[in-house]
């Protein structure tokens, strides 16, 4: 694994869990992000580090999102993504 990020569900950013976030060492600046946003940030990060990257493969959770696909293309990242059968491409 070359990068990874803990996904924090939205409920973890509520006021009710503020103290627990602090106790667990979750950075105060951490904001709620979807798995797609976390994934795109990781891809940009490893690319910026110069990690060899010929292709990114992902399942339909990511592939169905046209904005993510466009963002990968904008980053000049080749991808192989699963999409639902009824997806317009």
């Amino acid at each position: 694994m070359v990068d990874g990020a803990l996904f924090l569900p939205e409920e973890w950013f509520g006021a009710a869990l503020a103290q627990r976030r602090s106790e667990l060492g979750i950075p105060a600046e951490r904001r709620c992000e979807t798995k797609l946003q976390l994934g795109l940030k990781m891809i940009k990060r490893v690319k910026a580090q110069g990690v060899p990257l010929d292709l990114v493969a992902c399942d339909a959770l990511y592939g169905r999102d046209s904005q993510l696909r466009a963002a990968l293309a904008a980053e000049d990242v080749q991808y192989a993504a699963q999409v639902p059968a009824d997806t317009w491409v």
Partner: protein
Amino acid sequence: MLSDCAADAPMAPYPEWILEERLAGTGWHRLSEHGQERPASVEPAEASACGEPALHAPPRWGLSAEAVAHLGDHLLQFWLRFRGCFTTRTRDTSAHAYASLRAQLPMDTARNFAHMDRTLHGGDGQALQHFMSNSPGSGPAVFEQMQGEMTATPAWAHGSTLILDERADAQAGTHKAGASRQDKGRRGQVDVCRVDTCLP
């Protein structure tokens, strides 16, 4: 499991496990277990009852004995390169990181912390369990070093594919960071778990 915790977060007290002197430096060149060296090439290679090569027999995995002869040494070198990611200002728990990897190599079954620790050191596994549960150290530092090594390795310059995926870790409760009732990512199962988004 990945950790967002700061590298120098205070650790809860647990039974001290002194780093063995032979592990503390870089001069240890062979794996040994209670003074008995056990190179991978002499692992038993008998066939199982169903005719398949035994779990540790290299042919089972399409490997020659030579290919795995230095597996233990490679594991040790790997740990020596990354052990700095498992230290804090006040404590060096990196030996637990090595133990968690080392113990699994010769074990066929029952790869739980108690059995792993008993096999290696005759312990009860509590310290190892604590280490794995609390993840003292820096996840980002591991990734940074991993990325640096990949960048510096010419053999990986072309043909690399990264898989954007998630990994779920079942939890007994919601007291750990990120634990929640959520999609486990497999066949639509929903359960209490933590989920990492990762690039394996």
